[in-house]
């Protein structure tokens, strides 16, 4: 009994190393003089990102510059990574507002549930990816910072219009 080694007989064009080398070199030479490059020159040029991109958060504001958040507590409840810290407060008229609203972007998994669950359309995940900081503390975004963000926000997936048309 022997191991069934299957030996495929191939034509010379496929087995000649020298011919394969020459073909390969012709191919690379063609690309050497190809003026079309695939590189995106990053800081100057940027690739467009999806409308449904889920990046770092942004808190939308009302016309008089206050956060839309009413401190209902749905987003810290739904958050699977437990990264939202919310302490609700109430003013004299009985309007609820967040005393503390912090998101730890390192813990965040960018699932977008907070945006989906928010009844006031206040917290959003953003279409944004340039987030470098010099310290770890810089990644805990407080309410002021979340409100100061200006980047566009994510358009959530609509089950009625799955392709976004």
């Amino acid at each position, binding site marked *: *009994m*022997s*191991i069934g*080694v299957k*030996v495929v*007989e*191939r034509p*010379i064009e*496929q*087995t*000649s*190393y*020298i*011919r*394969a*080398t020459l073909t*390969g*070199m012709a*191919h*690379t*030479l063609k*690309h*050497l*003089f*190809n003026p*079309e*490059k*695939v*590189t995106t*020159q990053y800081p100057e040029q940027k690739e467009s990102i999806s409308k449904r991109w889920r990046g770092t958060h942004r808190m939308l504001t009302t016309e008089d510059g206050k956060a839309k958040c009413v401190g209902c507590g749905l987003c810290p409840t739904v958050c699977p990574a437990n990264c939202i810290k919310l302490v609700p407060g109430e003013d004299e008229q009985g309007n609820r507002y967040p005393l503390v609203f912090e998101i730890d972007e390192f813990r965040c998994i960018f699932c977008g549930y907070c945006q989906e669950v928010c009844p006031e359309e206040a917290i959003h995940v953003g279409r944004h990816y340039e987030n470098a900081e010099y310290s770890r503390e810089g990644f805990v975004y407080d309410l002021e910072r979340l409100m100061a963000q200006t980047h566009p926000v994510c358009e959530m997936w609509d089950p009625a219009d799955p392709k976004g048309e």
Partner: protein
Amino acid sequence: MTTIHALLQAATPGSTPHTLPYFVFTLVKLLLVFTVYMVGVALLTLAERKISAWIQDRHGPNRVGKGWLQPAADGVKNFVKEETYPAAANIPLFVLAPALAFIPALVTWAVIPFAAPWDSPWGRIDMMLAPLPVGFLFILAISSLGVYGIVLAGWSSNNKYALLGGLRSSAQMISYEIAMGMSTIPVLLLSGNVTLNRIVNQQAFETWNVLNLTIAFFIFLVAAFAETNRLPFDLPEAESELIAGYHSEYSAMKFSLFFIAEYANMVTASALMSTLFFGGWDIPFTLWDNVAPFTFLKTFLTLGCFVTKVLFFVFLYMWIRWTLPRFRYDQLMSLGWKLLLPLALGYIVAVATTIVTLDALGFARGSVPFHLGLILLNVAAVVILFVILDRGKLISPAYSRLNQRDVAKLRAVSAPRRAPLLPESGD
């Protein structure tokens, strides 16, 4: 001063070194060649990255001074990085190894003639650093020293990957050195001399060796690739198996020295190829550059010609590197020992026989019929080797045909070992 004069005279017998101009010009040549060589090697690292980028449809380095200052930035980075020493390394050898890899690459350059001599107002000046009469033998001797740097680096790092890389490189370089030395014997047979200037002149007045001795050039080319550890023969630093091979443990400028040595070796091998097979500094199709009077213009033009040839081969190195994948280790060894070495030996016999026959037939060396005879032999050899013998068996990549006899032999060897593992026939 007298010692230096004595040394100079020992290096160049027949010259008159007891003159100040000779001394001054030697110094100037030393400085110029060293500077140009090192700057050139630095720029080659940039060229390598640019060519690799273009072949892969990218831009390559284009940030630091439009890319031109990239070698300078790399150099500064390597100087300020931390030098690390493995705890169990053999420190003296560990420090010595990069220098041992780097120096032979530089020293080889001393005997390569890079331009036509110049009849200056102070006497004729040879355009090579040391016009040694044994020129070519010196190169063979020095180029085999390069392996010590790599082996010592692998050994002294006290790291299994480095050691394996060093072992591989020593096996590879020693194997291919034989083929390389043998492939140059036909050149020496034709020129009848080992002085590189004579070899260049012989090619200039007759024909370039690449036309007469294509097979020898082919063997030399392949062996030179293996000698310089460049792809497809870069097994000593195969990333997939050995991390970075012999320089795994090196950092900062010591790593950089290995890197520079690789490029310096590449330039030297390219210079050798152009000197031995492509007429050195000879300008093709003309003879005026090879005869007196040797003006400065001639020196300058022949230098340009030489640099062009060397740069072409350097480009070939890079072109092939970014085209071919690495060989498997057994393929590398069988190519060196089973193909290149017998081929080189057979070729020596063929060329020697042809030369003796042509001599016996009464054709003078260097005459047209003499060269026609050589070229006929060459065409026949090329056709036989690359068309008739090339059936996928010259170099055997993994997908090529297996010899049925080898398969049967392998099965027979493994049969007794496999037997106890086989299920009982009665079950």
